């Protein structure tokens, strides 16, 4: 069960990273990237690193997403 959970998370991580690279809409890519961070956070937690998980949730899913959104707001928001 535990291994299955890990495998599910890792598959989700790989899917997210492929989606981030392939998406043309930068806003969507940012949201998927935030999902990536949340999945990573769950994985850290499950692998026994709750302190890393906290930082991942706050910085990865929270702060960087906001910073990316601000950056997109100042540019065109679409990959050429």
């Amino acid at each position, binding site marked *: 069960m535990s291994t299955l959970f890990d495998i599910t998370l890792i598959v989700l991580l790989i899917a997210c990273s492929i989606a981030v690279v392939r998406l043309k809409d930068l806003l969507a890519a940012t949201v998927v990237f935030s999902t990536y961070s949340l999945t990573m956070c769950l994985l850290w937690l499950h692998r026994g690193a*709750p*302190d890393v998980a*906290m*930082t991942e949730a*706050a*910085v990865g899913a*929270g*702060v960087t997403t*906001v*910073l990316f959104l*601000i*950056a997109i*707001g*100042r*540019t065109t928001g679409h990959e050429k």
Partner: protein
Amino acid sequence: MIRRALIVVLLIAAAAPLMLAMSQLPPHGSSETPPYTHISPYYLEHGAEEAGAENIVTDVILNYRGFDTQHEVTVIFTSMAAVLAVLLLDPPGRQRAVQVQQPVPVSTVVRFIVRVLAPFIALFAIYVILNGHVTPGGGFQGGTIIGALVIALSLVMSKEDADALLPRKAEHLLQAAAPIAFFVVGLAGLFAWGEYLYFPRDEELRWLSTLMLIIIEIGIGVGGACVLIRIFRAMRAD
């Protein structure tokens, strides 16, 4: 042509010693290396008793590897300075190339949820910082939570209210809190015991080690939060 050849030669000259050094490293994951043979067992066995924190991770980060972490927080501070140097760089005569889009009004639901959750998130962050020597967490974790909280609040509040959360002047002064806290505790060790960043290991002085660890944790937390908030404010250009 000659320049290219020179670059290749230089690259090889730089890579060769590194490759040589890499080949000298013990095999990856080998159980024969010092960290596995005696360093980790020592930390696990003695950390809780002599380093001032029940949480071994905090012991290693702040006590046994204190120098490492001090320079880490200095790197964070320096990288903020670098980010600001790029963001605030506005050479005269060059117009800003992009136009800022009209801000989208914040939805009532989002504003309400953020405001209701804010005090609980703040309480949790303070708990994480102050309890970092007992439970998982500490200055880095709590600081990022505070930073994320202030950023979330700034997004749903008016500019004046958001500025009142953390006045500009206080923010400027507190950005360097992490390196300064380390420096102060380090100097205290230097004057009291003759060694920079010394933590007393005796049984009866354990409370003092714990206190020093907590001071550093608070410094890292406050400094880290201010760095995140500063970068956010610089990017929003307000």
